[in-house]
């Protein structure tokens, strides 16, 4: 049984991951913004076999509340083995271009709040000399594109931060996993037309648990995105800037 903390627990990928954890009998602590939705998910996870499930309401951009929430989680679980940071938004790129305020808010929701939580959790795992921190990034963080570079910049910042954190904590027996999903069929992407590249949240969740078990550092999910993003990263900037991606 693992003691698992999930932040952003009402997101589709987080919920799918929590279901797999519950089925193997883990103890879970769920953090999210919507109290009623958290309770519904908690009830579901209990039926699925979770050893215990508790919840706390937190807006991840409320940084003053982070430390207390993490302390509550750790005391409810009686320790901490795995933390998954899964909260985020999908910014309206066009609206961000017209609003500095909105751009910075989205950067906060998708990067600064994540970095703040990862800092506290990293310190916690470092002190106990073990543990795994998994964070949902995105393939969008691999290269800035006109269609969603506010989101991409935030995810890219998180990836770079985690790279440094991993470099530091690797010597302390702590795993830091950057998860880079491609297109996932979730409520966040409900407005998009779905094609062959789209994956289900359950596929991503299985990939996350497999990557945690295999002590991986960075995982693209599904795996073919590693190749797609390699090609995208290799396009010279003087050509890339003329593309409409």
């Amino acid at each position: 049984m693992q003691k698992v903390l999930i932040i952003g627990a009402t997101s589709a990928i987080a919920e799918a991951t929590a279901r797999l954890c519950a089925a193997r009998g883990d103890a879970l602590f769920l953090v999210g913004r919507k109290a009623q939705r958290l309770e519904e998910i908690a009830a579901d996870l209990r039926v699925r076999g979770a050893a215990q499930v508790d919840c706390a309401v937190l807006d991840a951009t409320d940084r003053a509340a982070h430390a207390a929430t993490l302390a509550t989680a750790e005391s409810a679980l009686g320790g901490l083995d795995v933390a998954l940071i899964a909260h985020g938004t999908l910014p309206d790129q066009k609206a961000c271009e017209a609003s500095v305020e909105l751009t910075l808010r989205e950067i906060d929701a998708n990067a600064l709040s994540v970095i703040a939580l990862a800092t506290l959790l990293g310190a916690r795992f470092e002190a106990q000399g073990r543990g795994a921190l998994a964070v949902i990034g995105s393939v969008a963080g691999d290269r800035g594109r006109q269609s969603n570079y506010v989101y991409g910049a935030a995810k890219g910042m998180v990836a770079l931060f985690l790279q440094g954190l991993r470099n530091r904590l690797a010597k302390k027996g702590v795993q830091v996993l950057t998860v880079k999903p491609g297109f996932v069929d979730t409520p966040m992407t409900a407005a998009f037309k779905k094609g062959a590249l789209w994956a289900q949240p359950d596929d991503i969740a299985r990939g996350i648990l497999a990557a945690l078990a295999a002590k991986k550092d960075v995982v693209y999910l599904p795996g073919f995105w590693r190749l797609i993003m390699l090609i995208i990263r290799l396009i010279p900037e003087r050509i890339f800037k003329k593309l409409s991606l």
Partner: protein
Amino acid sequence: MSLHSWGRLPGAPAAAELALAERTAPLPAADGSLLPYGNGRSYGDVCLNGGGMLLRMRGLDRFIAFDADPGADFGVLRCEAGVLLADILDTFVPRGWFLPVTPGTRFVTVGGAIANDVHGKNHHGAGTFGCHVLRFELLRSDGSRRVCSPTENAGWFAATVGGLGLTGAITWAEIRLRRIDGPLLAVENTRFAGLDEFFALNAAAEARHEYTVAWIDCLAATPRGIFMAGDHLAADAAQDAARSAPKKPLSFPFTPPVSLVNGLSLRAFNRLYFHKPLPARATQDYAPYFYPLDGILHWNRMYGRRGFYQYQCVVPPAARGAIDEMMRAIAASGQGSFLAVLKTFGERTSPGLLSFPMPGITLALDFPNRGAGTLALFARLDAIVTAAGGRLYAAKDARMPGALFRRGYPAFAEFTTYLDPGFASDFWRRIKE
């Protein structure tokens, strides 16, 4: 890609898809009629609403509670309506619980199982799925919510079980699960030739076995087939039989331009299937026993772009001659059926006003869509069913005349008083008058 039903027959698409993602949320505002859409496993048009709105229910996929007294034979599961039976089995079989009634695929939602009042191989003992539904919540387009059970809002309960999604949307349900000792079944297979032999085997087997069903080859000169009886294996026997790891299902990867099911392939398949080495007794995992076709995802694609029909009827117990007559009509038409299934329904009363099962004999057959020729055969079969006092299964149907449905379901008029004025389906528009 628009949503379709399992038969993949061509038809008008829905104007839009909406989704219900929270059980406490109101129905989304609809510009036209609504119809709940679960997992699209009904064959014809009960889950389609051409020009209207489909309300996707799979987002409501959470368990709510499970209660069972220690040592009890039954437990009570409360879950949202979009939960798949597969999800229930994955979660509960390892803990020693099973569905009290299961249809031939586990990829249906709980809401869909109720709305079609599905049945299984244990109908002779257990009745329909609806017999094991304790309560559910019905959300109507006027915003009202009713908890319905056989004793509370009983009229609404009877209308909604088997009600084809036309009385409103089911948001959650409470169903019974039954205790099992393990995932294995003891299976007995017997070849038979002729319907008399089937009925003799069946009469003996129903008294001794929980599950019975027969596959028949309707292309053979004399109907022949395999009678399959099964029972959950008791704990002591289960210990000796190791369960093999579940296989990853195969998937039919594309839709061929024409049906791969034709006279030639059918004759070959049926001959092979009948003569394949068959152990008289075997131990089998529940999944291949109950859901042989779930092992090949998208198997419906093999019928090609024109799709296929399933024809399932029930005739009263005394009407054995009607089954014989239908088999002859099918053989004479040359439109063979890939998997023909023969089973008798028991005496247990179905709880829904429009529930399909009634005491008698049920025959289910798949036919590739060959247009007018196929429809002409169905008209022949309809006449035999009507003369015998039988009826057809809406969940499988895409073409029955309205009069045939209304005559077959005496509670039709009563049912119409429970219709939700904001809900409709292709099936309903077709059969209502």
